[in-house]
C-alpha cells in the first residue's frame, strides 16, 4: 500500500522532472488563470478543470495558478460583472444567447450569469498574453527552482530522478 502511494507520488513529480517543457508550464498557468477567475459550481469551471487534466500541460502549475487567480478573481469580479453584463445584454447578441440557453446541457454552465460570462471573457482575452508573459518568467525561474528542489533528498527520492535526468532537463 505504501509502495503504491510512493509510486503515485513519483508519477506526479516525474511530470516536473521528465516530461514538462517551458511552454507546457506557461500554458498551464494561462489555463489555471481561467479556472481561478471563473466562479465555481458550474459546468464551465468543471470543463476547464477536466481540460487541465486532459491536456498535456503541467497540472501542478495549473492548479497553483488557479489558486492564485482565485484571489485575483475576487478583486476583478466587479469588472467582470460589468463586462459580462454588457455582453449578455447586448441586443445583437441576444438571439445567440437565447439559442445557446435553449440548447441541452448549456444552462448548466450558468453562462447567463454576468460574473461567469465576464470572467470567461476576461480569461479568454488574457489567456494568450499570460501564456506569452509566462514563457520568459518560467524560463528564468525553472532551473533555479529545480536546482533548489534537487538539493533535497526527499524530492530526489520521491521524483525518482537521477543526475543524467537533471542534466537533461537543464
Amino acid at each position: 500500500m505504501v509502495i503504491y502511494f510512493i509510486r503515485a507520488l513519483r508519477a506526479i513529480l516525474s511530470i516536473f522532472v521528465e516530461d514538462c517543457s517551458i511552454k507546457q508550464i506557461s500554458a498551464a498557468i494561462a489555463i489555471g488563470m481561467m479556472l481561478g477567475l471563473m466562479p465555481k459550481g458550474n459546468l464551465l469551471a468543471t470543463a476547464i478543470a477536466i481540460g487541465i487534466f486532459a491536456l498535456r500541460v503541467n497540472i501542478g502549475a495549473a492548479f497553483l495558478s488557479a489558486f492564485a487567480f482565485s484571489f485575483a478573481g475576487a478583486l476583478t469580479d466587479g469588472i467582470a460583472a460589468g463586462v459580462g453584463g454588457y455582453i449578455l445584454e447586448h441586443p445583437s447578441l441576444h438571439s445567440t444567447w437565447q439559442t445557446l440557453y435553449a440548447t441541452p446541457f448549456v444552462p448548466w454552465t450558468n453562462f447567463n450569469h454576468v460574473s461567469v460570462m465576464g470572467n470567461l471573457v476576461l480569461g479568454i482575452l488574457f489567456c494568450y498574453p499570460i501564456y506569452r508573459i509566462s514563457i520568459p518568467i518560467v524560463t528564468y525561474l525553472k532551473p533555479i527552482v529545480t536546482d533548489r528542489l534537487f538539493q533535497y533528498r526527499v524530492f530526489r527520492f520521491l521524483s525518482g530522478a537521477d543526475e543524467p535526468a537533471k542534466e537533461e532537463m537543464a
Partner: protein
Amino acid sequence: MKNIFRWNYVIPRLVVLTCLLLMLLYFSGPILKWTLIATGKSITTADVNIKEIKTDYLAGHLELIEVRAANPKKTNTDLFRFDKCSLDLNKNALFYKKLVIEKAEITGLQFDVERSKDGNIDDTPLTLLEQQLKKIGERIADQNFLRVIKAFKELSPEELSKQLETIQTANQIAVEWDNRFQNYHGRIEWIKQQGQAIETRIKSKDANVLNRIDQYAQAALEIDQVSNQIALSIKELDQIDELIQIDIQRLDAARKRDEQKIKDLAKLPEFSEQELVQYLLGEEIAEKTLSALSWYQWYQEHQFDVEDLPFYEREVGCIVPLKSAVEEPSGLIKELSIQGSGSHHDQPLEFASVIKNVSPNPESWIHPIACSVRTSGAVNASMHGTIDRRHDQPHTDQFVFSLGQLKQDSKQLGNPSELLLQLSPGMGELQAHLTVTDGKYLSGKVTYYQPNTSIGCAIPQDNPLAFLQPNINQVLSSVNELSFTVNVSGTSENPQVKVDSQFAKELADRLKVATQQQLFALQQHSIQQLNQYAFNQSQEVQSAILGNQQYYMNQVNLHQAQLKQVQQLIASLKDPLRGLFK
C-alpha cells in the same frame, strides 16, 4: 511533435469516470438518503428516518420507502409517516437545469402516530403567533358580562347608600342645622345670664351713691347690648323659614341628580350578542384558529425560497433571464397525490389529497399552487386551497374547508363562576372560507352548525344574575341546534376573531329583556325609595327645625320680657342723687 492530448492519462481516467458515473447511477441511494434526512431534520427541527431509497435515473424514477418525521411539538409521535413515495422526473427538463416532477405519489400516509423513540432534536419555544393566539381566549373571555353584574351590585341598597348624594346632602343639612341651633342656644344662654347679672347688680344697692350711679349707667348700656342681641336673634329665627326652603330645594336637587344616576346605572348594562357569544365560545374558537393558523405560519416559515440560496461563493452580479427551451420553472412538482389514513375520536378515517404546481419560484409558472384534500370514514371533509404567487404583489392564498359529520363531545361553554352552558354531544358541520393576502392579512368566515343539540344553563346562587337562570333555561329549552359564524380578520401574527351566532343572538335578546326588566324594577324601586327618603328627610328636618325655632323664639321672648322687667325696675328706683343733695 507530441500529441497535445495526454491520451495515456485521459483514457484510464475516462474509464474511472465512467465507473464513477455508473456507481452514481446505481448506488447513489445512500448519499441521497443522507441528504434528504439532513434536509428534513433542518426543516422540521425533529428526527427524520428513511428506510430505503430506490433510484433509476435512466427512467427518471425515484422511490422513498418508509419515511417517518417526528413531530417537533410532540416528539414521541410522528408528525407524519408514509409507506412509499414515488417520483417521476422529467428527464428532458434536467438537460436544461430544471427539476420537474411530472407526478409524485405518496401512499400510506399517517399523521400523529406514536414513535418507538423520542424524536426531539430541538427545544423550540412557542412562537409569537402561538402566544398571541393563546391569549385570544383569555382576551375575549374578559369581555364578559361582569359589567352587568357590576351594575346590579351598584344598584343594591348597600352600594346605593354609599353613592347617593341625597343621603349625603341630608346628613350635611342635619349637621348644619345642629351647628346653627347650638349657636342659637349659646346666644340665648348668654342673654339669659346677662339679664340675670344685671338684675342682681341693680338689686344689690351699693351704699356708695356714686357707685350706684355708675352701676345704673353700666346696666343701661348692657341692657341696650342685650336688647340688640335679642333683636338680632329674633330676626335670625324669623329667617329660618327661608333657610328651610333653601335646604329643601338643595335636598330636592340632590334627589333629582340621584334619580338620574340610578336611571343611568340601569341603562349601562347591555347584553351584547357579540360579547356573549365570544364569552361563551371564545376559547374554543381561539384553539381551533390557533391550530389552523400555526400550520399556515409553519408553511410560510419553511416554504422554499430559491432567492435565499447562495449562488456562488463570490456573489457579484446577477442572472440575465433567458427563455428556456422548457417552459417549466427551475423546480416544479406538477402533481403530487397523497393517500393515507388516520383517526378521529378513535374512529378510522382515510384521506386522499392532490397538490398541483408546487414550485420554489411560482412567479415563473402559469398556474397557481392548488391543493385539495378529501377524507372519508370518521370525518367527511374536504379542503381546497389556492396559493397564488404568480405576481409580485399582492399574493392571495385562498382556502375552502368543509367538514361534515364532525363528532362533538359534550362541552361546557363559559365560566363556572359566572355563567356556564352545558352542551350535549352531537355531530357538527364546519364550513370555512379563508383568504390570506400577502401572506399576512387575513379575511374569511367560518360557519359551524350542530343540529339536535340541547343546552342547559347554570349560574351560581351568589351571583347577582342568578335570577336570570329561569329566563335562560326558558330560552335554551327552545334551542335545538347550535350555529355560529366566525369572521376572521387582522394579520396572521395578530388575528382578530368576531363571532356571530343566531342562538347567541336569541339568548342575548332574552337576557337583555330579562336584565332590563329586572333592572327597571330595581331602578323604580330605588327611585321610589329615594323619593321616600328625600320626602321623609324633608319632613323630619322641617318639623325638627320648626320645633326648635319655636322653642328658641319662646326662650328669646321670655328673656326679652325679663329684660323689660329689669328696665322697669331701674326706672322705678328713686334717683340716687336725690338722697345725696337732701
